[in-house]
């Protein structure tokens, strides 16, 4: 629907229900804009995010994936965000190894009170993804298959 040919990245944001999804709601009710390229998927906790989801997103053409959870120590389920952090550290270095730039993935802690941080984070992430351009690496791999 957009008219110009500017690169519009596809960005998937996984937000935990207790902190980051609420932070995104607060960004919304405070009218703190960020690009429409970001689409949020609600998960109960950042630890629900299976690396498979992220690989699938890139496979299907996502240009960036961001996982948002509660601040360390503040997880609604006590320790979920620590699991997420460990898992994502491993996944991201593997992605980097197979050619998906580190900047295309991110883990960020956003509390329910941080609407401003949510919006700032998304603005920054979208800008970085725009800088990286379209995610062609995994696309290429798919073609070879």
């Amino acid at each position, binding site marked *: *629907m957009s008219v110009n040919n500017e690169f519009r990245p*596809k960005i998937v944001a996984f937000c935990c229900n207790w902190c980051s999804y609420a932070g995104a709601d607060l960004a919304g009710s405070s009218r703190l804009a960020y690009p429409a390229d970001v689409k949020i998927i609600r998960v*109960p906790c950042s*630890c*629900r995010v299976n690396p498979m989801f992220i690989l699938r997103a890139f496979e299907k*053409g*996502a240009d960036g994936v961001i996982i948002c959870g509660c601040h360390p120590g*503040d997880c609604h389920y006590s320790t979920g965000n620590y*699991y997420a952090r460990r898992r994502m550290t491993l996944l991201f270095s593997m992605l980097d190894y197979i050619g998906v730039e580190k900047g295309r993935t991110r883990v960020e802690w956003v*509390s329910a009170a941080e609407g401003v941080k949510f919006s700032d984070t998304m603005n920054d992430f979208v800008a970085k993804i725009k800088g990286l351009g379209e995610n062609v690496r995994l696309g290429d791999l798919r073609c070879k298959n």
Partner: protein
Amino acid sequence: MQRIGVFVCHCGSNIAATVDVKKVVEVIASEPGVVHAEDYQYMCSEAGQEKIAIAVREKKLTGIVVCSCSPRMHEATFRKAAERAGINPYMVEIANIREHCSWIHKDINEATEKAVILARAAVAKVNLNTPLTPGESRVTKRALVIGGGIAGIQTALDIADAGYKVDIVEKTPSIGGRMSQLDKTFPTLDCSACILTPKMVEAAAHENITIYTYSEVEKVSGFVGDFTVDIRKKARFIDADKCTGCGACQEKCPSKKTPSEFNRGLGTRTAIYTPFAQAIPNVPVIDTEACIKFKTGKCGLCQKICAAGAVDYTQKDEIVTEKYGAIVVATGFDTISLDKYDEYAYNQSPDVITSLELERVMNAAGPTHGHLERLSDGKAPKEIVFIQCVGSRCSDDRGKPYCSKICCMYTAKHAMLIRDKYPDVNVTVFYIDVRTPGKNFDEFYRRAVEQYGVNYVKGQVGKVIPQPNGKLLVQGSDLLDNKQILKEADMVVLATAIEPNKDVRKIATMLTASIDTNNFLTEAHAKLRPVESPTAGIFLSGVVQGPKDIPETVSQAGAAAVKVVGLLAKDKLMTNPCTAKADELLCNGCSSCANVCPYGAISYEDTLVNDHGIRETRRIAIVNSALCQGCGACTVACPSGAMDLQGFSNRQILSEVDAICR
């Protein structure tokens, strides 16, 4: 295949102004599984919910997508509507096209495009939804209040009066909190102790209230309705049952030089002490850091003198474990450290004090027995300067970004009381803004100016300069006069910012309650659920939620109590059915899931399975759905993909990913 109905809400103009709702309806109607799509002004209205019921009837819907505000607002509303219309409430998904779309985007094309994609993701998910049934859990009819200040006392009294048992856990040796340290209270100038003490006594005497002073919450487990809490009762070294509170031990104690916490370090106390005369319980504690007996093994005077034989040096800390249905956090506040603000010379001159210290100076039981005098030389001051907003409203890294809210009023109170009692003392207040919203508040401040002649100067102070003659030169701005003024004062009082009690972060972590960047606990909804934490069963009372004065604290304490009573009045709670479940054919019993489960909800059972005709007994993970809270940690840890989370299954989330990336 599901038969899905999609309902797109205008939310008045909140959504419809930036999202072309007709277009969303048009595009979504052709999605697989969608048999009905319509838009309506207000889906949450009765008429809107009726539309869902009609469509369910007429189109035989099996699943519902509502494109509207955040599910945190109305998911419950639409689930109930679905249930009334005869379909399982968990067959409803919400596409958040308001908070996550219309409110943050300006371009109607962009916003509409995004709304369609969010709707598609929700449709894709509902296609894979399955009916779920909540379980039930019991409610322990007992509440815990953490913190024994006015907030905690009031909450406990209100819960107890409604007929429920309630325990107060207080860290210090007595309940009473900050309010017990105040001299007078605004805006009516009641004596603080006179109005607080009866409440303390009432709480102590109430048959439904148990008070644990000198105690701390050590461990919390469980969930709403069924918390288990370990409380550490620190050793007082006094047998509370024998102690008569005669005070002889304190009179004789030779270790007298410990700064008194109650007097904000302005006076001293003995090693065996009760913090103040009206303390409840009136049972002293022994500070082992100061006690000569504990440090050297010699002394033991208090034990010798105690006629009741209550002193027991061998007492040990004790852990009490108790079950609760609800927990109220009322941990209160402290003033910030002024170490980073020494332009005001707080660390350089004893005559620069905080407002809370001034309360002790003005109080008859304080270090100066209520006489207004300089702490350096005991002389009566003639010129007093108050400085407002010390550490409040700061966006640098020294102070707090918020307004502490109480300072304008207590400074007016201090100024007025001083001018009333000592008419020859001049009082100057340097202020940035005077903020006095509240019943009879601005009138109170105006009285300070008009009736008591307090000199209010608009401008902040840059530096307090101690003089060789013992006076303090205050260098400040008079912005209305566009001048820099130098005022010689005998005393300077700093309206120091308040911050949540230091322990609150530890407590919030134990309770898994959300906390903000300033260490205030977060409410479930800033406007509509101000006394509840987003974590079910946790409630907020007093300054732990944000700066408040006494009247506000008492109101909020009552509100928190009502919420607790509402919870305790229920016999059973519905549990969240979105719990984990293992596929017995895929599970290999490796224990990875149990290792990451924070609730110990997973166990293993030898189960007879039929794997494509092969019947054998295998070790299979079993999830106790009463314990499982649905975080999903296990689903990712599972190496064979056997563990899945109902309501947020792998296939459901992948279908959302696919719909978004399409």
